[in-house]
């Protein structure tokens, strides 16, 4: 019967058949907590998805998930989880146009390099050279082309440094690509695999670039190592980028957890407010013989029902918002914000369940403790305080 009484009191506190003011307060807090939770979940999904997107750009266009270096080249054994193997040669060159110059990483790739996985990471511009030419072609990014003020069909010069001195090699811009991540695009150009060998005459680096299934990177790396290959993963090749992405993700999670803790404290304010407003009723119930534990449970359950509903609603809203990022990102992309070069404006949304669970659990735990703590005040309300005396 204590449970029935508890249900009756909790339902009334939640606004069921209760006063309009009680209903309003509950709904206001429900909406407020839902919005905060949805913002936290949305931000975390956004950050994780973007850093995963950036990592994919580096892995698919920059270095592959795994690199097996020249010294150990031979016939690679077939392994489960290896999706694509490409022979790549790379070096660095100063690229010149009449309007500018830039030191770039020039990757020589074979036909077939731009498979589905890689083309999904870039947009190739349509266009044909302005005039027929016998010059070798290079593939530049739109970012680099903008900097050099060249377009498809324009001539550029690669300044090559060799034992014979510095000599220019003229090429034509065969096409332009855009990976969406300007930081990577600004320093990366592609050309034919054979061209690299002809230009650099052995000073280039040749390696196998492997695309593997997500989650198999580390195990395959160990397998290849065990077979004597000199193998590195994309995060070792791009240590700074990988560390930055990881640190950013952890820092953002830390901030989200801190905000969740603050939100938990705010929830205890709701319980404090409810108790403060209901002092008269609490005193009344105590006078009638209700135990403090019952009264505490009424307010604890009320606040926790609001909290759990808000967390569920907020999580769903956050997931829903983040699954519809495209319109938001398009709106952002339409604005010419310089700092956007450090962000991706197109990426696949991933749902970091561990991070979401961490935020939700922290919020829930902090609210449980802070609400319990704030409900100590129930005991201080004397039954007499509801009466008027001589």
């Amino acid at each position: 019967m204590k449970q029935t009484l508890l249900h009756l009191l909790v339902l009334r506190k939640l606004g069921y058949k209760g006063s309009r003011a009680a209903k309003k307060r509950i709904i206001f807090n429900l909406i407020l907590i839902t919005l905060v939770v949805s913002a936290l979940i949305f931000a975390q999904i956004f950050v994780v998805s973007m850093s995963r997107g950036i990592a994919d750009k580096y892995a698919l266009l920059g270095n592959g998930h795994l690199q097996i270096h020249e010294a150990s080249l031979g016939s690679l054994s077939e392994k489960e989880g290896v999706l694509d193997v490409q022979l790549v040669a790379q070096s660095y060159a100063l690229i010149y146009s009449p309007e500018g110059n830039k030191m770039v990483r020039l990757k020589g790739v074979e036909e077939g390099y731009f498979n589905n996985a890689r083309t999904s990471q870039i947009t190739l511009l349509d266009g044909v050279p302005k005039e027929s030419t016998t010059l070798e072609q290079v593939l530049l990014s739109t970012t680099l082309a903008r900097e050099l003020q060249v377009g498809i069909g324009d001539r550029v010069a690669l300044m090559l440094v060799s034992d014979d001195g510095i000599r220019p090699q003229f090429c034509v811009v065969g096409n332009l690509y855009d990976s969406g991540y300007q930081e990577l695009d600004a320093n990366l150009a592609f050309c034919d695999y054979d061209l690299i060998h002809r230009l650099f005459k052995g000073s280039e680096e040749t390696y196998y670039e492997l695309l593997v299934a997500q989650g198999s990177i580390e195990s395959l790396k160990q397998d290849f190592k065990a077979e004597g290959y000199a193998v590195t993963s994309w995060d070792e090749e791009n240590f700074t980028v990988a560390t930055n992405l990881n640190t950013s993700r952890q820092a953002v999670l830390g901030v989200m957890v801190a905000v969740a803790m603050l939100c938990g404290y705010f929830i205890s304010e709701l319980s404090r407010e409810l108790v403060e407003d209901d002092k008269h009723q609490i005193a009344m119930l105590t006078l009638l013989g209700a135990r403090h534990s019952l009264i505490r449970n009424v307010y604890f359950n009320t606040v926790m029902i609001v909290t759990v509903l808000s967390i569920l609603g907020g999580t769903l809203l956050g997931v829903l918002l983040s699954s519809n990022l495209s319109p938001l990102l398009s709106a952002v992309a339409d604005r010419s914000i310089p700092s956007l070069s450090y962000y991706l404006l197109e990426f696949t949304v991933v749902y970091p369940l561990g991070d979401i669970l961490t935020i939700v659990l922290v919020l829930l735990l902090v609210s449980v403790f802070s609400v319990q703590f704030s409900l100590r005040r129930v005991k201080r309300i004397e039954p007499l305080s509801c009466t008027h005396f001589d």
Partner: protein
Amino acid sequence: MMKSTEVLTLEAVSKSFPATLRGGEPIQILEGVSLSLNRSTSIAITGRSGSGKSTLLQISAGLLSADSGSIRFEGKEITKLDDEHLSRLRSRSMGFIFQSSLLLDDFTALENVQISAMIAGSSEKEASRKSLAMLELVGMQDRLGHTSDQLSGGERQRVAIARALVNEPSLIFADEPTGSLDERNAALVEDLLFSLVAEREVALMLITHNLAFASRCNTVYQLHNRNVEVRS
């Protein structure tokens, strides 16, 4: 063995309050008060405003601690009971009626009475049955679903009486129960209170300024000079 009919016994009860919040010379309110109250009897405490009538009621009900003396409720020394036991005693053996009816705002008349029964341990069904019967007894059967703000002062007080009696307590503490009512409603509430107290063999401790109301009790005490004396 015959069950004792003694419900409340106060022996040499004293109470003082600090003069200010910061302390100072305490003000003695009660000094060596002794009285007793048996089942089916009623006593009235009268006296000037500020004489300590309500303090005496609160101490008798265990709502306020005495500085010294003994307070026995149905033979149990209540000064030695902890909060939990006092709560249980209040819910099952005591009923309260105050000047302002003190109903729970968001609840209907029926729920107000029902909650009191449920706090005392009745199941929802039993509480509902007892509350309906009690509200019918006080003539509120047509106002069961009305909340406090939809009831008149007299109606609220009738609900408060039903609530005080629903758990069949041994003793009703009534502090100026008609103090905020007009003459007609006051008379109705007085009649109702005395008839139910007599019918249910409950003891009644009544605090009032109204001597005519007080005179309906078996014994009338006057609180004077920090102690009670039987009023002739």
